[in-house]
């Protein structure tokens, strides 16, 4: 197993104790912990260069602008993109909403269809429902196969000219399954549909290069990849960003404002109305620097090893059922499971007594839960700072839960 253990000391929170036990943080799919380098970058920004960006002729404003635009370049480079096509948003959710409103509101109409999968996060369902309501378009779903991956066998029957947008996640935050990016984007191209990739779980955990995949838009969140809350990114193909309307109006995003009409600033500024999350951009930039220095392939390998180990350990626990691919090459490190008749919240509470943080609930994927026929699952998820002993602690905690629930 790739040993990233020495990095743990970069994350102050990992030395915290919870209920008298060292914290075992297995909830990185919800949000990740932050290394000192990220916190220091933001602190330094506020302590030495804080000012509003652009439009400023004084030194601090110039420094802040340089730091902000420099962060954009870092985040862009991290996904092989051009900074001019990399827009800072509040997060994945905001990015997908911007795409839905900015591209869909003026273009979709009655009879059009938006294709998603049943494994999507609410962030990739609800915006399309809203746009469907406004335009009369319809939302259609791809379901899953037995190994919890998208059932691409269904594609042939569902793909036709009515499909205008295909939007899906690169990695499920529930099953951990990788999305069939190439298959779905090819299918979309066959009917000239737009391809939107919810990369909230993909970009933090695997190398992603926008030149290697054929998607129109890509969305991800800083807080899920060591960066601060309050910021994320939307990347788009230049022609898509050009034709897309901004969904927020205000300062910085305009070229000329007259009383009754305005013209927009060039991309990416067109999509960044108002004072942007400046310190957050600086922190986001520091986060991708940190990830880059380790190497995303190293991180992906580490997580694959850890996931393999976890799947093995979990398979030894009686009555435990994993909702996700068994094959670690088809998946990332978000592992959802059910244990006998113990409700996920009870599992989370019991584990928390031993300092182990897992998530319990519908994971913002209620249609998937309904499809799987479960009210909730428990989910352990891994990142670069996790170590095999933490998987052991999880397994022990689950055995203890069995005991407490009288399952010996």
């Amino acid at each position, binding site marked *: 197993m790739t040993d990233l253990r020495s990095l743990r000391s970069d994350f102050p929170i990992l030395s915290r104790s919870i209920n008298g036990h060292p914290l075992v943080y297995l909830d990185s799919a919800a949000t990740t912990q932050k290394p000192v380098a990220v916190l220091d970058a933001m602190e330094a920004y506020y302590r030495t260069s804080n000012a509003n960006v652009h439009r400023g002729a004084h030194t601090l404003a110039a420094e802040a602008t340089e730091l902000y635009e420099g962060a954009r370049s870092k985040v862009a480079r991290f996904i092989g993109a051009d900074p001019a096509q990399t827009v800072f948003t509040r997060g994945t959710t905001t990015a997908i909403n911007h795409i839905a409103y900015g591209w869909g509101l003026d273009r979709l109409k009655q009879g059009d269809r938006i294709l998603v999968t049943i494994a999507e996060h609410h962030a990739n369902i609800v915006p399309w429902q809203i746009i469907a309501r406004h335009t009369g378009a319809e939302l259609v779903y791809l379901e899953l196969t037995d190994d919890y991956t998208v059932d691409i066998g269904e594609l042939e029957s569902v793909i036709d000219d009515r499909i205008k947008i295909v939007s899906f996640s690169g990695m499920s935050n529930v099953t951990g399954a990788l999305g069939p990016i190439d298959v779905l984007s090819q299918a979309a191209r066959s009917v000239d549909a737009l391809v939107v990739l919810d990369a909230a779980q993909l970009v933090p955990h695997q190398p992603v290069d926008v030149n290697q995949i054929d998607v129109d838009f890509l969305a991800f969140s800083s807080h899920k990849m060591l960066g601060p809350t309050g910021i994320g990114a939307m990347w788009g193909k230049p022609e898509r960003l050009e034709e897309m309307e901004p969904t927020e109006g205000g300062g910085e995003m305009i070229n000329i404002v007259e009383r009754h009409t305005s013209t927009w600033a060039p991309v990416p500024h067109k999509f960044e109305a108002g004072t942007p999350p400046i310190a957050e951009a600086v922190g986001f930039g520091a986060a991708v620097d940190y990830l880059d220095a380790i190497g995303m392939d190293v991180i992906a390998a580490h997580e694959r090893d850890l996931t393999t180990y976890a799947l093995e350990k979990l398979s030894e626990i009686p009555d435990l059922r994993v909702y996700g691919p068994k094959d670690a090459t088809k998946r990332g490190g978000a592992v959802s499971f059910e244990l006998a*008749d*113990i*409700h*996920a919240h*009870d599992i989370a509470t019991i584990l928390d007594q031993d300092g182990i943080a897992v998530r319990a609930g519908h994971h913002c994927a209620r249609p998937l839960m309904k499809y799987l026929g479960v*009210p*909730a699952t428990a989910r352990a998820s891994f990142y670069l700072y996790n170590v095999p002993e933490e998987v052991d602690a999880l397994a022990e905690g689950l055995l203890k839960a069995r005991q407490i629930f009288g399952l010996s």
Partner: protein
Amino acid sequence: MSQLDELYREVILDHYRNPRKRGTLNGAHVHAEGNNPSCGDEFSIDVAIEDGKITDAAMQGQGCSISQASGSMMMDAIIGKSLAEVSDLTTKFKTMMTIEEGENPVDPDRPGSVLGDLEALQGVRKFPVRIKCADLAWATLSDALEQAEKAS
């Protein structure tokens, strides 16, 4: 007892696994639904009321052991009681759940305890995020009784 053992007392697990009065009612009744969107617990209740008395009730729902056991215990506690008694019970339950640690916790084993099995839910107080699980059934009951009052 460890805090976990206090939370997951046997009587709670028993109610969780063998909920009393699971189902729906036929005939005249009021119906109410509640959920905790933040954790996904769901609860619905049918209550038949005659002459100011709860003559029957039934519950459905899904969720954690605490929310479901709380509902099941509530069934036991309210059926056959007058509305005044149920209101009193609700107050007592809420008081028990909000009492701060050390502040005279109710002794479940004392003679004449009105809350009965429900007192087993005291352990939840040590787990503040779970209190809303225990409350769900009672909040839904209050909704149902308010409806009944409006209808009458």
